[in-house]
């Protein structure tokens, strides 16, 4: 549970996590195993099709939520269930406390519920004098330790068996060994007694099915079944977003939820509860008092928020944390307040106050791994960026992000400043790199060599290298992007060489500017809109067949985001025409030019590949780069080729401690693969990988695909 409200204290907390060897090893192992297991468990079903169906049906349910609530209430009431609705977390806590009081409850058992965590029900019940025991093993452990969950499905994943043994020793006043099977037996015995005596059981609900007023609960341990069976009172706490029309809707989600959560085909138990079932605690023939508390806590407001309401599709599988490279390094206590992972950054803003999300919302590297696996197809990185925009509006931007925003929106000023910087950097420049920077500029950046601004930008060299026009050939407009235009113009030059050799006409519309992604990432939406418009205009005038870029991030941003960004600007047709033409360098060569292997000289260099996040996930490109690599060298596969290198644009400046560790893992994997060179399709990734490789002594050569191919062109 991260409650840090200043960047400084948050950085301190991140360092603590990074220094926790057990946490690091556990999450590392989990990240690798989860990915492999997930792939296997999804092998026999249509993953993308199901996810898109879930998204559509959840949206429809949100459209009709009030009707579903009415239908559910009518059905459930008819069957003896008492349905409540709580507007706020406090209302929900008060309601549950009053139900407990009315029923002379003393002891309460709980099965796992994130909604109950959301409202901090345990505190409210304990303050009111009730004895509350969590019965999910992980939840019980963290309850005994007075901690919050560090994962939505595996709440105690941050703890070692030794820590659990110590906690159980204190609880049972008996010495407990750290044998996991024995620790589980301790829980079985201790908690059975709690089940036997409890007066009230509190559960969550994965689904509230309107057509028959039933709820469904998925658990592996079976504690949910005992919680809803043994005590004479059952209270289910359920977000109103869990309302769905039919059993079919629940079955559809069940096909994905356990697969995504823990790579299981299904949880061991799925319990479907209808009506006030019999309960013999008070003797034969007695009925259970069954209450359902529907929690709003900002949800109906969120439904009206056309941009962010998709967050309410979440089925709480926790997969967004499972694949997050940042979560993998720092764990859930630094990646959420109550809800964890990418969805945690978002829901904290909506459910637990904007102030609490200010720092947390910055800690997304934008790699889109979460979006790629989300069970409900939520565009999580986009929503996090949107929240940054709103936080900037509400609390004001930081000085650096506001300045960058204004600067990038003014192309001429930006380019003039870069030219000035070329001279200003001379005192600290050493070859193509910046020497040791004064601490004020280079805070925490020691993990990589920082590139200097090139002595001649691409736009300055263009008139001299512009190839002759081939009549009738395809015409591409080169979109340079800031990094290649001003830092790595050689990569663009290499691309021009390759394209000319293949008989492609190349144009360079000079009015182009930054793609706008860096300012979008920092929540400077207006600047992102201005740069987008500027680029569309610049390319419209040059009338090209393709907008070709060597930067995966620029490509993905221009192709996937411009349309939404420029909604309402009255330029739909222009935006679509532009976005449709955007293509990355590797795909252009394999899919459009259909380049032949003999174009290149096959060498015996062992070359690895790093997938830029925005290429593999942003654009869905997987095969093109490898096809090209194999035509010119010996492709050397490395583990986790598609995991983020830690660059993330401004992220690496904001969170250098995390960026550096991600880079370290990436380089280690590449070195261990036996590759002597690594190729990538993004100048940002290049900057990161090359910066790290240089810092480590330069044994590993890093190249952009364009330079690599230019070097292997057949004469």
């Amino acid at each position, binding site marked *: 549970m991260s409650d840090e409200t200043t960047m400084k204290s948050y950085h301190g907390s991140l360092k603590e996590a990074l220094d926790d060897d057990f946490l690091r090893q556990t999450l590392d192992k989990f990240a690798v195993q989860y990915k492999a297991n997930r792939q296997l468990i999804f092998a026999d079903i249509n993953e993308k099709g199901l996810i898109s169906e879930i998204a559509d049906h959840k949206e429809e349910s949100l459209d009709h939520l009030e009707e579903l609530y009415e239908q559910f209430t009518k059905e459930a009431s008819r069957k003896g269930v008492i349905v409540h609705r709580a507007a706020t977390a406090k209302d929900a806590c008060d309601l549950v406390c009053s139900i407990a009081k009315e029923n002379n409850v003393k002891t309460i058992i709980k099965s796992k519920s994130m909604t109950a965590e959301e409202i901090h029900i345990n505190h409210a019940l304990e303050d009111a004098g009730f004895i509350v025991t969590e019965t999910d093993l992980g939840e019980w452990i963290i309850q005994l330790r007075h901690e919050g969950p560090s994962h939505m499905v595996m709440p105690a994943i941050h703890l070692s068996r030794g820590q659990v043994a110590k906690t159980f020793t204190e609880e049972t006043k008996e010495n407990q060994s750290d044998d996991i099977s024995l620790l589980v037996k301790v829980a079985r015995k201790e908690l059975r007694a709690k089940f036997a005596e409890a007066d009230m059981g509190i559960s969550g609900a994965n689904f509230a099915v309107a057509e028959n007023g039933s709820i469904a609960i998925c658990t592996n341990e079976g504690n949910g079944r005992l919680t809803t069976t043994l005590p004479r009172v059952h209270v289910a706490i359920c977000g109103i977003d869990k309302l769905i029309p039919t059993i079919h809707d629940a079955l559809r989600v069940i096909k994905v939820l356990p697969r995504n959560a823990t790579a299981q085909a299904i949880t061991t138990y799925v319990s479907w509860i209808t009506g006030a*079932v019999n309960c013999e605690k008070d003797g034969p023939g007695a009925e259970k008092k069954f209450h359902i508390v529907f929690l709003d806590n900002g949800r109906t407001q969120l439904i009206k928020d056309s941009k962010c309401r998709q967050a309410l599709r979440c089925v709480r599988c926790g997969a967004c944390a499972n694949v997050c490279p940042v979560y993998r390094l720092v764990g859930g206590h630094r990646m959420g307040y109550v809800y964890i992972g990418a969805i945690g950054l978002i829901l904290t803003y909506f459910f637990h106050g904007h102030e609490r999300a200010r720092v947390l919302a910055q800690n997304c590297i934008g790699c889109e791994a979460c979006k790629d696996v989300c069970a409900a197809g939520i565009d999580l990185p986009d929503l996090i960026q949107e929240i940054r925009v709103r936080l900037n509006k509400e609390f004001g931007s930081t000085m650096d992000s506001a300045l960058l925003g204004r600067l990038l929106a003014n192309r001429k000023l930006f380019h003039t400043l870069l030219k000035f910087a070329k001279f200003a950097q001379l005192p600290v420049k050493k070859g193509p790199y910046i020497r040791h920077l004064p601490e004020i500029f280079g805070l925490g950046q020691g993990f990589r060599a920082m590139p200097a601004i090139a002595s001649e930008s691409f736009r300055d060299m263009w008139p001299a290298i512009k190839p002759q026009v081939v009549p009738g050939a395809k015409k591409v407009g080169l979109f340079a992007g800031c990094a290649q235009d001003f830092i790595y113009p050689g990569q663009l030059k290499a691309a021009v060489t390759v394209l000319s050799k293949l008989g492609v006409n190349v144009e360079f519309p000079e009015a182009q500017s930054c793609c706008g992604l860096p300012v979008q990432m920092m929540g400077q939406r207006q600047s992102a809109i201005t740069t987008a418009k500027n680029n569309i205009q610049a390319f419209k005038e040059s009338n090209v067949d393709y907008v070709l870029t060597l930067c995966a991030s620029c490509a993905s941003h221009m192709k996937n985001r411009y349309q939404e960004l420029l909604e309402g600007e009255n330029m739909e047709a222009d935006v679509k025409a532009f976005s449709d033409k955007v293509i990355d360098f590797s795909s252009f060569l394999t899919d459009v030019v259909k380049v032949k292997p003999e174009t290149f000289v096959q060498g015996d260099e062992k070359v690895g590949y790093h997938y830029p996040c925005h290429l593999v996930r942003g654009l869905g490109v997987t095969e093109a780069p490898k096809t090209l690599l194999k035509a010119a060298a010996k492709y050397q596969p490395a583990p986790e080729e598609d995991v983020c290198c830690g660059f993330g644009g401004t992220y690496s400046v904001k969170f250098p401690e995390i960026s550096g560790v991600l880079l370290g893992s990436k380089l280690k994997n590449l070195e261990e693969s036996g590759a002597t060179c690594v190729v990538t399709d993004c100048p940002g990734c290049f900057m990161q990988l090359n910066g790290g490789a240089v810092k480590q002594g330069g044994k590993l050569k890093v190249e952009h695909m364009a330079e690599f191919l230019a070097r292997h062109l057949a004469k």
Partner: protein
Amino acid sequence: MSNINAAAVDLFIAKAKPVTIQVSTANNLDEAMNFALDLCDKQPLGKLMLDTGAPPDESRKKTFSAPGVDEKLWGYLVDGGSKKGFEMIRGGLRKYLAGIDMSFTVADLGIADTASCVVECQSEDERLAAMICERHVVALSKSKIVSESYEAEPFLKAAMAKERNYTAFISGPSRTADIERVLTLGVHGPLELYLVLLEN
């Protein structure tokens, strides 16, 4: 026999293995009940989970429950169980929260692609029987196995249309991986789940 979906049966058996359901087959319910009785007989005496104050009684009778079965099956079980010296329990399971050695259940439906036994547990005793035992034997007729969950919808719809209903998908023994992600069976419910597939 024509109403058996052989592909679904094979799929169920294949999917049961990874979720640690131990599958066997029998010609009829009598055989399935004999299997449960024999299994209970062979297993060591279960450990009690509640302190009753008295010292552990190693000479206590093994307990066998089957609250969901009809009169005829119950008669058969009592007959067999008594001969083996079991305490046979059909109701009042709350008195046995410390633990039961064996429970026997007849499933209403099977879902092949997730190896799920669908059990409608109208009474509290049926729900408890499946949860507080150390070992659980479930009998399932092959003819009641469907390929995947959407095919179970008519059954679920009818069950949940009732005034009171508690239906469960059970897909293995109670499990947890909450400590260091190490899979451990029997955290709250059964340590082992046996499925007997019936030809008839």
